Every structure is written in C-alpha cells, then in structure tokens.
C-alpha cells in the first residue's frame, strides 16, 4: 500500500444552503484495493459518491483521480477518465434490452463515440465487451429482455454490468446488495468479487457481512466526517467506531435480523 493513491480526496466539503453534509473528508485509495464506506443513515455516503463521480460539485477541497483534478469535472468527463459508478436506486435505460444497456455502457470507451455514419453493430469491440459482461453478470439468458421487465435482483446485476462495461479501473458501487435476500446478496458479493478483480473498488454498504467479507479496508463516515479508516478487524475493534456507529447500528441491525428471521 505504498504506491501513489488512485483516488485522493483532500479537505472535501459540501454544504447545501446552511447545512454542511460533508465536513472535511480526506481519503486516499490505493490501486487495487476494495474499500467499503460505512456509516449511519444520513452520514453523507451517497453525497460523497455524488461528489467523486461529478453528479455534485464540492463546495471546498479537491478530488484527484490518478493525480488529475476532477473536483469540477462533469460526470461524462470523469467516466471517460476511467471512473464508473452504480446507483443505489436502479438507474437503467429501462426501455432498451439488457444487451443494449450493456453496449451503451461500453460504447464510449470502445470507439463508438457520437458516430452517425457507422453501424453500431459494426463497433466490434463494444459488442464483444457487452457480451463478455453479459456472461459475467449471468444474464445471458435474458439478453433480449428489456431492462424494465427484469426482476429486482436481475436489475441490480445489470446495474453493476452497465457500470463495469466501460472497463473503468476505479469503480464506485452504491449499496449494490440493498433490498436483496440473503442468497441474492451472497450471489451479488460473488459477482462483485469476480468483476472487480484487479480494479479499485469503493462501495457503500449497510450489510456488515458483505462489508467484512469483501473489503480490504473500511472507512467510517459519521456526520460528514471520516472518523476511522483501516482494516476490517481494526475498525471492528475501534472504540470510537463502536461508540459512534457500530454500537447503535449493529445492535439495531442485529435486532432487525432477529425479527426478520
């Protein structure tokens, strides 16, 4: 973990009107690590994702992707620089087929561009990539179904597929297992592990099994500040974390789980 950070957040602030949502976040991501972002509801995890991916712009501070300042860049520019993200609420091209969704994801990075003088079927690399991702996310059987008719778990898988299709090497996944059953969640974890191999992954996740099973490092965000970053075991043992988050959050999650079972 001594190489230069792939993604670097320095003193990032975000305020909406009078309300400070992100209050000075510093975070360095190392190439190839799987990093989980946890924290109670309203801590600013999704806002932080929006700032990194260009959906929102930081009020202060800088965000760098492989050294390049992307604090004020547009989402499409950031995507072309090799950072892709998924969404907490499924965000697909719902009237297009599964294959078309994946191809749209792959098109920009595989030479499709805005071309109106060549057939999209002729952009061989994009088509090959879409089929490759289709197999990887296990939706080959549903290739020609429209995204809107998929089941929830299938849509979540496609959400990840569209995100990784461009081949970005920094990937942000926003609650990829939200709303899933235990078995679906386990399948999703296996899928994430497979498709993000060798890439840098940041994920927001509430399910602690997923977090501790998948992440190399964990950062805890509370009220817009990162109160701890470290290996999962260290985070688990961290007194501040237990007090601020795990103490209440885990107890509640455990209670909910018991009630569920």
């Amino acid at each position: 973990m001594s190489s230069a950070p792939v993604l670097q957040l320095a003193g990032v602030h975000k305020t909406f009107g009078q309300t400070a949502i992100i209050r000075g976040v510093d975070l360095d991501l190392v190439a190839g690590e799987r990093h989980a972002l946890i924290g109670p509801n309203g801590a600013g995890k999704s806002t932080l994702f929006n700032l990194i991916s260009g959906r929102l712009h930081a009020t202060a501070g800088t965000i760098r992707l492989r050294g390049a300042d992307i604090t004020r860049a547009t989402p499409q520019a950031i995507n072309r620089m090799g950072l892709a993200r998924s969404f907490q609420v499924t965000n697909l091209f719902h009237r297009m087929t599964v294959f078309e969704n994946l191809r749209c994801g792959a098109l920009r990075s595989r030479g499709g561009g805005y071309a109106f003088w060549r057939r999209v079927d002729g952009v061989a690399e994009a088509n090959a990539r879409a089929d490759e991702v289709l197999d990887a996310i296990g939706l080959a059987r549903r290739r020609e179904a429209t995204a809107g008719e998929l089941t929830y778990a299938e849509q979540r898988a496609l959400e990840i597929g569209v995100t990784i299709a461009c081949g970005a090497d920094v990937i942000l996944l926003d609650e990829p297992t939200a709303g899933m059953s235990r078995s679906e969640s386990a399948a999703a974890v296996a899928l994430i592990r497979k498709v993000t191999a060798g890439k840098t992954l940041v994920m927001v996740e509430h399910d602690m099994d997923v977090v501790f099973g998948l992440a190399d490092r964990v950062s805890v965000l509370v009220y817009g500040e990162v109160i701890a970053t470290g290996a999962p075991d260290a985070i688990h043992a961290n007194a501040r974390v237990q007090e601020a988050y795990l103490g209440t959050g885990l107890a509640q999650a455990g209670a909910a789980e018991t009630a569920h079972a």
Partner: protein
Amino acid sequence: MKGRPHLVAALPALACLVALPFVFPQGFALSLMCQMGIATIFALSYNMLLGQTGLLSFGHAVYFGLGAFCAMHVLRWAGGSGGGGAWVVIALPLVGGLGGLIAGIVLGAITTRRAGTIFAMISLGVGEMVASVAPMFPALFGGEAGLNANRVFGAPLFGITFGPQRQVYYLIVAWALLAAWGMHALTRTPLGRMANAARDNPERAQFVGYHPQMVRFLMLALSGFFAGIAGGLSAINYEIVTGESLGAHTSALVLLMAFIGGIGQFYGPIIGAVLVTFLQTALSQYTHAWLFYFGLFFLFMVLEAPGGIASLVQLHREPWRQGLLRWVWPQYALAALPVALTLAGLIGVVELVYRVAGGVEAGETSWKLFGNAIDATRWQPWALALLLFAGGGAWLRRAWSGVAWQWKMVLLATARGKDR
C-alpha cells in the same frame, strides 16, 4: 441471411409505389400521393426528436420551411440562368436538406441545452420567432404572397422535364425512400442508440460517458436535415413557398401525424403522415366540419391508443404469429355494425348542428343524402340521429365487452405461447 427477407418484402412494396400513379391517374389522387410522400419524410424526421430522443418540439416546421425557402431560392436562380434543368430539380431536395441542417445547427445549439418541458417551450418560442421574423424580410421570404418559381426550365433529361405531376411523384418517391432508409439506418448507429439512452435516462447516459446535450444537438441537426429535404420537395411540388410553411400550424400538423401514427415504432409516423394528409385533403371535400372530426379522432387516439396506430399493429403481431387472432375476428365482426351505427348517429348530429349554427353558408339548412332531402330545421332528422347515436352506443358497449374479454384470453394464451 440478414437483409434478404427485407428485400423480398421491399420489392412488392416498391412495385406498388411505381404502379400507384397508373392505378390512380386522376390529378387529385396524384397530388394527394405527392403530399403524402412529403409528409412522410417530414413526420419521420419529427419522430427522430419525439420518439427516438424524447424531445417534444412545437417548432419543427422551422426546419421544413427554411429548407423549402433555400430550395426555392436556388430554383429561382437556376430558372433565371436557365442552366441545369432537370438535374437541378433532382438535386434540389438536398439543397433544402442543407438549409434545414444549417438551421438545425444554429437553432439547435440554443434549443437543445435543456430537455423535457423546457425544450418544448424553447422550441415553441424559437418557432414563433422565426415565423414572425420571416415577413420582415420580403426579399428572402417573399412577404405575404411567398416566393414562387417554375420547376420546368432548361433542357429535358431523357425526356424528363418535371412538368407532369407524375414525374414529380416519382422524384418524391425516390427521395422519400432514400430519406426513410437514411433515418432508419441512423437508428442503428452509436448516435441513434445513445439518443434512445438519453431519452430513457439522460442522467445515466452521462455516467456512461456521454453528454446528453451533445446527443440532443446532433439528433436535432440531423432531423433538421431530413425536414429540409421534405421542405425542398414541397418547393418543387407546389412551386410556391409561403411563410405558413414555417409556422405553428405546420408544426402542430407534423406533431399530430407522428403521434397518431405512433412514435414508439419507426414506421408509425409513416402511417400517421398518410392518414392525416388523406383526412385533411379528402375529408375537407365532403364536410365543413372536417376539422372537428379530425380533432375528435385525435382525442380518441390519445385517450384510447396513446401509442398510436403502430401500437395497435404491434399488439396484433404476436397473436397473429401464433394464429390466435381467429378468436378475435368474430368479435370484431360483431362490433362492426354498432360501430357503424354509432358513427352514423354522431356524424348526423354534428352535421345538423353545423347546419343550424350557420357553419355552412348562411341560411342553407338542408342537404341531400342518398337522394333524400334532409332539413335541419325539422325535428325528424334530429330524432333519428340521436336515436342512432344513443342506440348504437349502447349496443357498442355490449359488443365491446365481448371484444375486451376475448382479447384478455388471447393475451393470456399469447404469453403462454411465448414462454414455450
């Protein structure tokens, strides 16, 4: 194996288009078909925005009209110099297309900054602006009278002068086929697919690396190009272009064509263009109330089949393939008579109202139908019309519930057949 089946289907269709002027040689029919061809290109170009990119435009006539004026100026200039002749006329729609393209590039840069309602409002504003500015430049737009020219000049090309309407018809058919092919091919390009993507979810389009504004701009410019081709053809066909071709009426008409035909399918606007042109040209010969009927029809389509006629066609396709439609035909046949009776009653009432309200010439309250004189000032025709409308309507309700029930069965069976 790919393009072959299309070719097999295309040849008879092509033969029909070639044969049409011989089947309907009358001047009226021929000019109607020419109008339909022009409207087809225009409506398809409109659907590049509404159906494919999700942009509701209230000012698409601007590109049609500016293309038409560009073509008209070149036609006048060529006619004056006497050079080129038929060659100029053949290439003239391309001039219109370039005019539309340039207009699309200039105006699109402003209008496509936003999508949704904002785009609709800006397109309305830009359309009104161009239409109201045009009369201030009589040298360019010919003032109230418009600009005219003679399409016949110079030496004939293999006997083609474009004097006879039939020759113009074939020119329109050729350009319509070329333009439709081009627009269809465009749907299968990276830009065409990203237009669909930006329509479905502009935000996600950004996160896969595309600028939705750029997608919208390119689609609008190209749609302006095809609208301009239609405009160029109309300059040739009518030999006159007036400010009306730029205006809100033309913009509204193309919206109706695309919507009635169906914006969800590529071929939808073709049906809409043919049907609406037919209604507005043919129906207006029979009744003064044609605009009312047209409005009623549009209302019916929006309420009952918002996907347009093409969506009804699509609905029948899969059951047809599985041979399940034979369950529905008898129900349709049973409903046909009550539909006819209800329509007859409705038409009767509308025509009577138009007569008494002075919608026709003043004082003319009677007319002849199948040799019988009908007097709108007496009570009998009113009673008959109302009875037809009410009785037919009640019967239709019963008959239609049979159709609906049978359709439910068909759709269930279709879904099962599809799974197998």
